[in-house]
């Protein structure tokens, strides 16, 4: 691995789902990178392509989806060029992923002990005693009450929070260098969610790992992340250090997102993002230009015929928009 290069570099990634009505462009030539020992946040409304992006990194895009272009460079290897056999040894061992629905992500007919042992043995030859010792220790570290008893339980006998702990234990068992967490707190109540985030932060510190954190919650981004990417309809429209993006958002969509977060009406069941007026364009036959044009208050004639340029407004801060509009937004 190059000494100072990013841990993960995604360039021009393009993922299409082949459907009866044509190909659905779920992810369209996106770019971002994640440094080592960094927490990178990915926000965007439902259907903007966050999960598909995450699954692309692991090479697990569900059919009929397919990566049709771009590169995913992890360390010094381009994952897209590696054979499945090699990618498999990276999954779980070097890149782990925790999913949104913890209970559904556990095998319903096997005990926790069996599932943890599967995870521990996926990449290492361990004896039974060692597997058991490590399983108990991992569960205890995650704050599982009575870990010994939990080992004998089936997923349906555990609460959502306990299922989440089991899944996190499985995914962290090989101490991956990159952990992808796809809305890890959505299924949990607030306290358990906060505990989980705290644990992820600690894991990152102790093992110098990086995290790709997908969430709807701008508060979580502010609290957890070093850098953030904002996704809209398959495009990463703005990416940069959290401080810069929050203080000085340059893309009209990011701006709307932050505005709506500030006007927070805590009792509203809608997430921050869903309060932005208008709807996401149809990804089946997306307009050739900016996919935010129909909702954008600053739309220009130049926005519609072609994808807007990707401009670097500050070091490491990129925006996908017209230069004149970006300049207008510049902080005084």
């Amino acid at each position, binding site marked *: 691995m190059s000494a100072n290069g990013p841990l993960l570099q995604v360039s021009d990634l393009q993922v299409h789902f082949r459907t009866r009505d044509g190909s659905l462009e779920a992810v369209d030539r996106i770019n971002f990178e994640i440094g080592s020992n960094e927490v990178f946040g990915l926000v965007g409304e439902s259907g903007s392509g966050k999960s598909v992006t995450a699954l692309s990194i692991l090479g697990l895009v569900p059919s009929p989806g397919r990566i049709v272009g771009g590169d995913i460079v992890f360390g010094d290897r381009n994952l897209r060029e590696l054979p499945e056999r090699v990618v498999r040894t990276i999954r779980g061992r070097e890149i782990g992923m925790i*999913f949104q629905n913890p209970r559904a992500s556990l095998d319903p007919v096997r005990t926790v002990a069996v599932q943890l042992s599967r995870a521990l043995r996926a990449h290492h030859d361990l004896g039974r005693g060692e597997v058991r010792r490590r399983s108990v220790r991992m569960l205890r570290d995650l704050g599982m009450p009575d870990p010994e008893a939990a080992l004998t339980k089936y997923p349906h006998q555990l609460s959502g929070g306990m299922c989440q702990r089991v899944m996190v234990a499985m995914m962290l068992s090989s101490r991956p260098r990159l952990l992808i967490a796809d809305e890890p707190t959505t299924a949990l109540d607030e306290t358990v969610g906060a505990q989980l985030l705290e644990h992820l932060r600690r894991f990152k510190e102790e093992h110098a790992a990086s995290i790709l954190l997908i969430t709807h919650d701008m508060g979580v981004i502010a609290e957890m992340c070093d850098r953030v990417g904002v996704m809209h309809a398959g495009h990463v429209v703005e990416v940069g250090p959290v401080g810069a993006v929050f203080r000085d958002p340059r893309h009209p969509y990011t701006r709307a997102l932050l505005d709506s977060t500030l006007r927070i009406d805590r009792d509203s069941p809608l997430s921050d993002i869903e309060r932005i007026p208008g709807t996401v364009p149809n990804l089946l036959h997306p307009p050739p230009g900016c996919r935010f044009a129909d909702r954008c208050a600053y739309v220009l004639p130049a926005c519609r015929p072609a994808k807007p340029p990707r401009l670097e407004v500050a070091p490491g801060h990129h925006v996908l928009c017209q230069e004149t509009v970006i300049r207008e937004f510049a902080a005084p």
Partner: protein
Amino acid sequence: MTRRRYLGRRLALLVLVVFGISIVAFLLVHVLPGDPARSRLGVFATEELVQLKRAEMGLDKSLPEQYVTYMGNVFRGDLGDSWRTHNPVAEDFVERFPATIELALAALLLAVVLGVSLGVAAALRRNGPFDHLATLLGILGISAPVFWIGLLLIIAFVTQLHVLPAPLGRLASDVEAPTQITGLYVVDSLLTANWEALRSSLLYLVLPAVTLGILPLAPITRMTRAAMIEALDSDFVRAARALGLSRTQVVVKIALRNALIPVVSMVGLQLGYLVGGAVLVEIVFTWSGIGLYLYRSVIGLDFAPIQSLVLIVGVLFALINLAVDMLYFAIDPRIRVR
């Protein structure tokens, strides 16, 4: 609910079901067309003679009285006599039952092994060659009657290709039956290392087993395919893949293991049709099991065997259902605690 309480409830239910079956079996003789007494004496017997015979057979008593007598006999192992074979029905039954078991087991084994493999292959490569084969089999299984498939196979492999023996029984006439242990020729000849009998019994078994097996093959394939597709698309398979588990482990130990749960209940359901199909297959292949016995008894209006077979097959069926339920219980931890 604990395992023991569940089992207790199921057993209580079984007793009720068996009681119901015995009533049906008993009443059957009274609703079937034809008079048992007259059918024994023939059409030329006088009415007085028939009345005498009825009294002798206890048919003039009240129904509850007759039922009690009947069940008393059953519990003593006396199922009445067949006037066609002149043997006690119980003897005839014990003699023929292994043949049917052998046929049904072979058919089931074939259907399960082929159906599950084909279903898995079809699910792994949707719209691939195995998927099309599975669809084709599904159409065949639904639309083609068993006896027609049987006859077709006989024409192809016996009359045309001459690779299999004529459909006349379970063994070539010049081969001696293996020493009886289980009554299943294939098993017995294996156990006694009687290779000649093994070869012959296998040759005779192939076509009837395939014919009978086609019936449950299609639904088992379809169910396996659907359950496998669901399992392969599930969150837990995706998570297992994200862990870097090997493909074999993910497909067999996780996806297939979960997919088998609905497949097992489907197999249980198919056992019923298998019994019905066995009667037809035994007729087509002159396979001397209880299906053929039942058929000949019905044709000859031989009431005692018909009545006993309804009772025995009914009870057997209830027992099989119980066994399938217990199996279901064993493979799905989620129904252990409610």
